């Protein structure tokens, strides 16, 4: 299969590379770029562990061909924060006990971000609805919703600086 050149922005940095057309975007991230924060829980778009943001919208990277990243702005969990400066959502998830096994956490954080970026002060039901594509088997969701709500009350987390 002939390879394709793709260009996209990943966590704020421009990237240009050649990919096989059958390569999944999640595999590009995990296998080729070593960004293993994006998880695979079901491989069929049901669990949301592989959630990334494409132009600000949360999508399942396990159902996305890598070639489709061409021309888009993509954010993964690695683009949210670092040890020195956690994203407000990351801080809230820790403080509220929203992290247990942690496998759903990266996807959950990104879905939360995609909500707060367009709707900084969502209602609790809106939060629940927006994370409905991210399954968590440990928490029962209450603490995750609490954490997102905490950031929403503080001003939506859109102003990190």
């Amino acid at each position, binding site marked *: *299969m002939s390879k394709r050149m793709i260009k996209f922005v990943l966590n704020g940095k421009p990237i240009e590379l050649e990919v096989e*057309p*059958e390569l999944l975007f999640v595999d590009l991230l995990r296998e080729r770029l070593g960004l293993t924060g994006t998880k695979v829980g079901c491989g069929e*778009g049901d669990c949301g562990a592989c959630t990334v943001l494409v132009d600000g919208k949360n*999508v399942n990277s396990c*159902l*996305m061909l890598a070639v489709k990243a061409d021309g888009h702005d993509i954010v993964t969990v690695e683009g949210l924060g670092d040890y020195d400066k956690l994203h407000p959502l990351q801080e809230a998830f820790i403080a509220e006990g929203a992290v247990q096994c942690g496998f759903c956490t990266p996807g959950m954080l990104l*879905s939360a971000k995609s909500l707060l970026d367009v709707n900084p002060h969502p209602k609790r039901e809106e939060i629940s609805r927006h994370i*409905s*594509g991210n399954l968590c088997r440990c928490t029962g969701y209450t603490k995750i919703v609490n954490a997102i709500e905490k950031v929403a009350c503080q001003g939506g987390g859109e102003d990190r600086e």
Partner: protein
Amino acid sequence: MQFNYHSPKSETELAALLNGMEDYCLLAGGTDVMVKMKEKLISPRNLVDVSGIESLKGIRETAGSLWIGPLVTHRELMDSPVMNKKTAALCLAASEVGSPQIRNAGTVGGNIGNASPAADTVPALLALDAKVQLNSANGSENLPLDKVFVGPGRTCLKSGQYIAGIHVSPVAAGEGAAFAKFGKRKALACSIVNGAAWVRVQGGVITAARIALGSVGPTPVRLYETEKWLVGRKPEPAVFAEAGLQAEQSVRPIDDVRCTATHRGKLARVTVQRCLEAATKQAMEVCVCE
């Protein structure tokens, strides 16, 4: 997965590419196609990614009709101000598809092309009298949506044809439309039964109706008999109940992992009853307001 990947940038390019091409599958949002390919249910030699074709995107209002580009995502549909104003039931249906992630990627054209009997936007589109424009290198044709489906996962699209647009009728004054869905969960649930209804109420009686149900047979269905029966009747609970009963008796659902056939029949009844109730309520509210 192994395939030749094509990404035409225009409809002309797409039509020319598909002309004579064997063993291909069109790829839009990929929320169904990718799953089927990963599960090896399909393994097309050619994957034609249409997502770069600008003319298949967007929502446009034309005289007496709304044009929906097949690449419009469920998210775009549910967020569209014009669609929410003119076809709220369709926006509601779009908001019930999969999850936020699926709605951000999945498209209306894909929902039709995938031909799942449980597709959520389809009953709403049917109730809004949707017409589908099918194009190919050999020309163009317009078909009522219910003529498109021939079986589970199968459409009438001929080799070389693609969905170029969807026309729906806006809900006017004195008219109402509603959508309802039953799933096992509130999100990420394949419909056990879904349905929609559209009615026109004039002078206190129903003068026209369209009812559609999904997940109660090999394809989504229109209930033409019940639609006819409704004409001339008063929009009242007993009439909705009788229409629901007719729906239960006319559908031929199957038993599967999600639901038994018997229960599906009962849900079909409730779906029709509730949709008619909500649709007529809307129709009469508009009457009063204007």
